[in-house]
C-alpha cells in the first residue's frame, strides 16, 4: 500500500474511530472528550492535504479512454465476496474539492462546539464526516449506497437532539423524506448492478454494459433519489423545516456538504453511469432547475425568518448547480462543481452568522432584528460580506458557478436552453433582491434587539477561513477546477 492509499482510507477511518473514542468518554470528562473529538477532526485534515500529491504519482498509471474515471489513487479490497461487494475507494478531481470541504467544515463545526452542548454532538459530527467523505470517495455503487445511508441517522439525531422548539417534527420529516429518496437510490443501484453484473464505478462509468432502456429506467430512479437530497424543486420541502430547527453546526453541515451528496451523486453516478438516460432527461432536469432558481428566489422574498430564508436560498443556489449539470456540457459540469463548493463555503458561513445573530438577539424574526451595523458592526460586516457573496458578486466564489451555468445553457443553444438561461439570469437578479431585503432588515435601520458586539474567538475561528476561501475561490476558481483532468 502506498502512503496515498493509507491516506485515502484514513480520511474515512479517522473520523469513524474518533467518533467511537469520543463516545466512550465518561460524562465527567466532557471537555476532554470534546477536545479529543476536535483533534480527530483536525488530524483528518492531514491525509486530505496529502491526497493532491497523489495526482502526480498516480497520473501515468492509467491510460483509460477519455471520459472514464481516472483516480489519483485508489484502494480496492474485496469485502463481501458473496455479494460482489468491494471496499473500493478512490479520489479524483471531481470528488476531492468536496472531500476537502467536508474536512474543513467538520473541523470548524467541532471547534465551534468546543463550548456549548455536549460531546455527543461532536461524536455525531465525526460520524457524519466519515459517512459524507465515504460517499464522495466510494468507487463501488453498493458501498456508495451504504455511506449515503450512514449519514441519515446522525443528522436526524443532531436535529432532534439539539434543535429548536419544533425539532422533532422537522427531524422526522427530514428522515422520512430522505428515506423515501433512498428507496429510489436502492432500486437504481440494484438495477444498474444487476444489469451490468458489477457495481464497480470504474467499469460502469460511461454506460458500458447497460442497454438504452435500462439506462432510462436507472437514470430516472437515481435522479429522483439525488433530487430529493440536493434538493431539486419540487422535492425540497424537507429542507426549510430541517434548517430552521437544526442547531447552527447542523445547519452548516447540512447545507455545506450534505446537500452536495445529491449533486455529486448526480454527476458521478446518474450522469456517469447512465449517460444516455441523462441525455434523454436533460431538458426535464433543466426546466426543473430553472423553476427551482426562480421559485426559490421568489419564495425567499416572502420569508420572515432568518434561517428559513437562508434555507430557501439553498433551493435557488442548488438550482444553478443542477442547471449546470443538466446542460451536460463540460462548462456546465465544471460550473456545477465550483457552484457546489462555493455554496458550501458561503451558505456554511451564512448559517454560522445566522446562529451568531440568533444566539445574541434570541430571535430570528426579521421584523424583530435591525440596526446590526450600529450594535455589532463587525458581525454586520461579515454578514454583509456573506450575503453579497451569496448573491453571486463577481470576484467572490458564488459568481463562477452561477454565471457559467448560464453560459453553459447559452452554449447548449436552441430555444429551450436559451429560455432557461434567461430565467436563470433573472433568478440571479431576484437573488440580489432578497439578500438586499435581508440586509436592509437586519443591518440597517434603528437598532432593535440589544446585541452584544463582542465576537468570541471560536466564532472568528469558524468564520475567518470560510471568508478567506470565498475570496480565494472567487479570484482563483482554478483552485476548484484545477484538480480536474
Amino acid at each position, binding site marked *: 500500500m502506498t502512503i496515498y492509499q493509507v491516506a485515502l482510507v484514513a480520511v474515512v477511518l479517522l473520523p469513524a474511530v474518533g467518533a467511537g473514542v469520543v463516545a466512550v468518554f465518561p460524562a465527567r470528562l466532557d471537555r476532554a472528550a470534546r477536545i479529543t473529538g476536535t483533534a480527530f477532526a483536525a488530524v483528518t485534515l492531514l491525509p486530505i492535504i496529502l491526497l493532491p500529491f497523489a495526482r502526480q504519482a498516480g497520473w501515468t498509471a492509467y491510460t483509460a479512454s477519455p471520459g472514464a474515471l481516472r483516480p489519483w489513487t485508489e484502494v480496492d479490497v474485496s469485502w463481501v465476496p458473496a455479494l460482489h461487494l468491494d471496499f473500493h475507494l478512490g479520489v479524483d478531481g471531481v470528488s476531492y474539492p468536496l472531500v476537502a470541504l467536508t474536512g474543513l467544515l467538520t473541523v470548524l463545526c467541532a471547534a465551534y462546539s468546543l463550548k456549548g452542548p455536549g460531546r455527543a454532538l461532536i461524536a455525531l459530527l465525526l460520524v457524519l464526516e466519515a459517512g459524507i467523505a465515504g460517499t464522495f470517495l466510494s468507487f463501488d455503487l453498493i458501498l456508495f449506497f451504504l455511506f449515503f445511508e450512514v449519514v441519515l441517522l446522525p443528522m436526524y439525531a443532531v436535529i432532534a437532539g439539539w434543535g429548536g422548539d419544533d425539532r422533532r417534527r422537522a427531524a422526522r*420529516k427530514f428522515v*422520512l*423524506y430522505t428515506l423515501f429518496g433512498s428507496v429510489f437510490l436502492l432500486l437504481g443501484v440494484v438495477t444498474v448492478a444487476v444489469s451490468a453484473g458489477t457495481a464497480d464505478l470504474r467499469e460502469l462509468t460511461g454506460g458500458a454494459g447497460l442497454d438504452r432502456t435500462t439506462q432510462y429506467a436507472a437514470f430516472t430512479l437515481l435522479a429522483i433519489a439525488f433530487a430529493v437530497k440536493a434538493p431539486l*424543486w*419540487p422535492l*425540497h*420541502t*424537507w429542507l426549510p423545516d430541517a434548517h430552521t430547527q437544526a442547531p447552527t453546526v447542523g445547519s452548516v453541515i447540512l447545507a455545506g456538504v450534505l446537500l452536495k451528496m445529491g449533486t455529486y451523486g448526480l454527476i458521478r453516478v446518474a450522469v456517469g453511469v447512465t449517460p444516455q438516460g441523462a441525455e434523454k432527461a436533460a431538458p426535464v432536469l433543466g426546466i426543473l432547475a430553472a423553476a427551482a432558481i426562480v*421559485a426559490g428566489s*421568489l*419564495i425567499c*422574498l*416572502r420569508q420572515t425568518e432568518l434561517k428559513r430564508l437562508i434555507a430557501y436560498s439553498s433551493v435557488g443556489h442548488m438550482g444553478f448547480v443542477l442547471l449546470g449539470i443538466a446542460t451536460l*456540457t*463540460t*462548462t*456546465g*459540469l*465544471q*460550473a456545477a462543481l465550483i457552484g457546489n463548493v462555493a455554496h458550501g463555503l458561503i451558505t456554511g458561513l451564512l448559517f454560522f452568522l445566522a446562529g451568531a445573530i440568533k444566539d445574541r438577539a434570541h430571535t430570528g424574526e426579521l421584523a424583530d432584528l435591525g440596526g446590526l*451595523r*450600529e450594535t455589532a*458592526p*463587525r458581525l454586520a*460586516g461579515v454578514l*454583509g460580506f456573506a450575503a*453579497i457573496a451569496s448573491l453571486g*458578486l*463577481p*470576484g467572490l466564489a458564488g*459568481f*463562477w458557478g452561477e*454565471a*457559467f451555468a*448560464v*453560459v*453553459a445553457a*447559452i*452554449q447548449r443553444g436552441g430555444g429551450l436552453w436559451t429560455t432557461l*438561461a*434567461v430565467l436563470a*439570469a*433573472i433568478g*440571479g*437578479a*431576484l437573488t*440580489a*433582491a432578497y439578500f*438586499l*431585503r435581508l440586509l*436592509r432588515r437586519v443591518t*440597517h*435601520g434603528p437598532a432593535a434587539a440589544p446585541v452584544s458586539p463582542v465576537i468570541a474567538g471560536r466564532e472568528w475561528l469558524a468564520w475567518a477561513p470560510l471568508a478567506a476561501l470565498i*475570496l480565494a475561490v472567487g479570484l*482563483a*476558481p*482554478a483552485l476548484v*477546477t*484545477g484538480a480536474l483532468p
Partner: protein
Amino acid sequence: MIVALIPGVPLLLGLIGLLLPPGDGERRRPAATLGIVGAAAALLVTLGLLLFAHKPVEASTHWVTLGSVELTFGFSAGMAALYVALAVAVVALCVQIYSVAYLHDDPRYAPYAAQVSLFTGAMLLVVTSSDLIGTLIGWEVMGACSYLLIGHDRRLPEAPAAAVKAFLVTRVGDVGFLLGVALLIVDAGTSRIAALLAHDYSTGTLTAALLLILAGVAGKSAQFPLHTWLPDAMAGPTPISALIHAATMVAAGVYLVFRLYPLFDRSPAALAVLGVMAAVTILLGALSATAQDDLKRVLAWSTVSQIGYMTGALAVGSPAAALFHLLTHAAFKALLFLAAGAVIHAVGTNYLSRMGGLREHMPVTFWSFAVGLGALAGVPPLAGFWSKENVLTAAAHATEGGETAPVWVAWVVWLAALLAVLITAWYATRLLLCAFFGISRAHGPDGPDWEIGFDDARYTAPATPHDPPGAMRWPILLLAVPAALLGLAAYAPGFRTALELDDPHLDVAIVLPLVLLAAGAGAAWWLWRAVPGVDPAEALGPARHVFANGFHLDTLQDRAVVRPVRALAKVVTATDERVVDAAVEGTGTGTTGAGEVLAMAHRVPLPTAAVAVLAGALLLGAVAVWFGGVA
C-alpha cells in the same frame, strides 16, 4: 505587469481597510492613510505610464478554462484608457482627502474609506481589464460598493432604500449584461476583448448580444429607462455622489461601449437603440433638473442628461467625442458635487428654497460653483463648451449620412442635444441664483426649521455660512482647474491623438448652441429679476410637478415591476406551502391515518372478528369453487 497596479493597489488596500476596526479619533488615521495612498498610487502609476509609455501597455496570463471557454487574467491600457484612469484616480484622490474632513466625526469612517478604495479599484479594473470577465467583475463590484456607500448615512431613513434601489436597478440591467457577455464569449470561445473584437459574429448574434449589453449599460450609466436609481442615490454622502457621478459607476457604461465600439460599429440596430435611448435621456434628465428643490437632485438629473450626451455621441459614431465629454464631465461634476457638499456643510440643508445669499459668505465655493455650472452649461471657454461642441458637431455631421447609425437617429440625437443646451443653461442659472444670490432664506417661510440630517457630520447649523476647511477647500480648488481649462486640451496634439479627436474647428455652427445657451440663461435671469427671491421654477406652472417627480417614472416602475414581482412571490410561496408541501404532509398524515384504520381493524371485539374470519373463509371458499368449476 505594472498596469495591473492601477486597479490592484486600491483594491488591495481597500480589502485591507475593511479589516480595520471602526472607531473615532486616532483610529481614523490608518484608514485615511490607506484610502489616500491607494488613490495616490493609482494616480502615480497612471501618470508614469502616460508620460513614459509610448505604446499601449499590456499584460495577461491564463486564468481558468471552463469547458471550451478560456479566460485570461489580463490588463491593457491604451492612451485613451490611461486618460480615463487618470480622471478616475484624480477624482478618487480628491474625494478621499475631502472625506477626511467631511466625515470628521463619523465612527464608521474606516469601512467608508475602504469601500471608496474598492469602488475606485473596481472602476479602474473596468478601465484596464483586457478580459470581458475581468470587466464584469469590476462592473459588479462597483454596484456592490455603490450599495454600501449610498446606504452609509445612518440618520437618513431613506438611505437604505436608496441603496437597495441603486443595486437592484443596475442588477436588473446586469441580467442583460451577463447574457450578452455569455453570447459573445460562447461564440468566440474566449473572453479576451481583443479576440472578441476581431471575431466574426453573425448579425443576429451580434445584435442580440449588443442589445443585451446595452441593458447593462443603461443600468450603470443611468440611461432611460433604468435611470431611476440615480436621483435617489443622493441619499449617500456628498463625496460619494461626486465619486459615482464623475469618475465611477455612471462613466463605466459609456466606457464599456467605447471599449467594445468596433462591435457596435457593425450593428446599426444597436446604435439606433442607443441613440433613441440617449435622446430620451438627454431631455428627460434636463427637464427633470429644472424643477428640483434639492440642490443635489438638480445635479443628479443633470448627470443623467450629460451622460445622455455621451451615449448620443457614441450612437452617432463619435466615440472620441463621448470620451472627451466623459473627461470634462468628470472634472466639472466632481467639482460641483464637492462644492455642493461645502454648501450643504455650511447651511445644513439640501433645499434651494432654504438657501440664498451665500455669495458673500462663501466666495471660494461660489466661484467654484460658478465655474462648474458654466462648464456644465457649456459657456466658452470652460471645459464643457468644447466637449459639448464636439458632440453636437458629430451629431450634425452624422445627419448627412455615412455613419453606421441611421440618419434619423442622428437627427433625433442632434435635436435633443440642442434643445437640452437651452434647458441646461436655464437650470444652471436658476441653481446659481437660488443658492448664492438674493437674501438668505435659511428659516423658510414658517420660521426656524432645522433641516439637519443630510450630512454625515453632526453639525448644528452655524450662524453664518463660511467656506469649508482646508481639506475640503483644496480638492475643490484643484478640480476647478480642469473644469475650467480641460477643454483647451483639445488643442494639445498628444491628448487629441490619444482620444482620436478631430481637430478643433470653430465655425459658424457654434453660433446656434451659443444663442440657445444665452436664451436659456437669460430666461432664468429675467424670471429671477422680475420677482427677486422667487424660484424661477414657479414659471413652469403645472409641468413643475411632473418634472419634479421625474415624469412619475418611479411610480410606473413600482406598478409595472415591483408590485407584480411581489404578487408573484406571494402566489409562488402560497403554492409552495399549500400544494407542494401540503402534498408531502398529506402523504404523512394519510399514511398515519391508514395505519390507524388498520390498527383499529385489529382491535375489534372477538365476535365481530370471528364473523369476519368466517366471512373471509366463506368468500375464499366460494372463489375456489367458482374458479375450480370454471377450470
